[in-house]
């Protein structure tokens, strides 16, 4: 499900939602959405099952942008 900027601002404030940054570690370190976690797309398969154990938890995912 795609969400707008306004929705995303709400999701970032919601403590029940995991905000997930799927860009590289370097891009994340330079700047990310408040409270976001970082799992790069390339590492997702390996890390997600161990670190995001609750599969029913709401997740808001983002990357660099449309371009």
């Amino acid at each position, binding site marked *: *499900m*795609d*969400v*707008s*900027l306004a*929705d*995303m*601002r709400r*999701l970032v404030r919601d*403590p*029940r939602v*995991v905000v997930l*940054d*799927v*860009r590289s*570690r370097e*891009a*994340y*370190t*330079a*700047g*990310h*959405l*408040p*409270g*976001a*976690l*970082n*799992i790069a*797309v390339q590492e*997702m*398969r390996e890390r*997600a*099952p161990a*670190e*995001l*154990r*609750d*599969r*029913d*938890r*709401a*997740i*808001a*995912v*983002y*990357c*660099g*942008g*449309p*371009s």
Partner: protein
Amino acid sequence: MSLLDELGYSRVSHFPGGMQEWETAALRIQQGAPISTEVLLKPQRPIRIRRDRWGAFVDLFERRTTADLVWIWIGTIALWALLYWSLTLAGVGGLREGDDMIGGGRSGFWTALYFSFGAATSIALGDVVPTGPVRILAIVEAVVGLLVFGAMVSKLVSRRQEQVVAEIHRLAYEDRLERVQTDLHLVLAELQGIAQLCRTPSVPTEQIRARADSASGMCLAELRTIHGLLYRPQELPEEVTLEGILASLAIVLRELRAMVQCLDSRSPYLTRNLNGLSRLAVEICADCVPRRYTQTMRDWMDEIQTVARDLG
């Protein structure tokens, strides 16, 4: 994101605008290396207790107040008395006193009520006896009456017990908070002592190093407790208390940073502790903890996070 769907996550929202749109809107951005995800992502499923039908029946009593139960008990007795009396009048079995069945007047009802009390408390003396189908009714009353009476008594006892348990929990929690503050103070004194030794040229390095190792271990243990207070509070500490703890923690971390800068080399143990400290402390920031706090506390938390970055 199809990859997350594939991995089995059911509630994924995708923000296609990404970092670019967020930055264009000039919204707040956070900087810094990734934090460990373990703490944040513990499954949050509610604990489900399996209930059987018998349990549901017991719960029916559990929810009532003691006064309710007394009235239920008295009501049961009165209802059964009415049943005995009317069944006797209808001629379907009934209550017999001596050789005669009880009468239909007021005295007959009193006798039925007297028998009903006897049956409910299982002390029926045998001067009034049930006959025919009414005997089954009497047994049912004895069982129901005892159940309600038992629930009433256990309610009285357990209420006191619940108060005691709550009190114990509260005391243990306050004790823990107090201990954290005392420990932080001791750690602070120790760190300052080490820093002073470090500046004295005549003291052997091994001695300083051993004390630094041990102090960093204590620091880490305290930080774990505080981290737990913020992320998994059993009870919400008073803001004043928590603020004191956070302030002490910030000061301790600052001293630790000063001490580390003074040391010329770090043992592997110290390095491990410092990494652990910075990993945990980075998660203590106003925007990452699960609750919202007052501005002063937010400032302390942000200070803790800033100092922690330098430690790792």
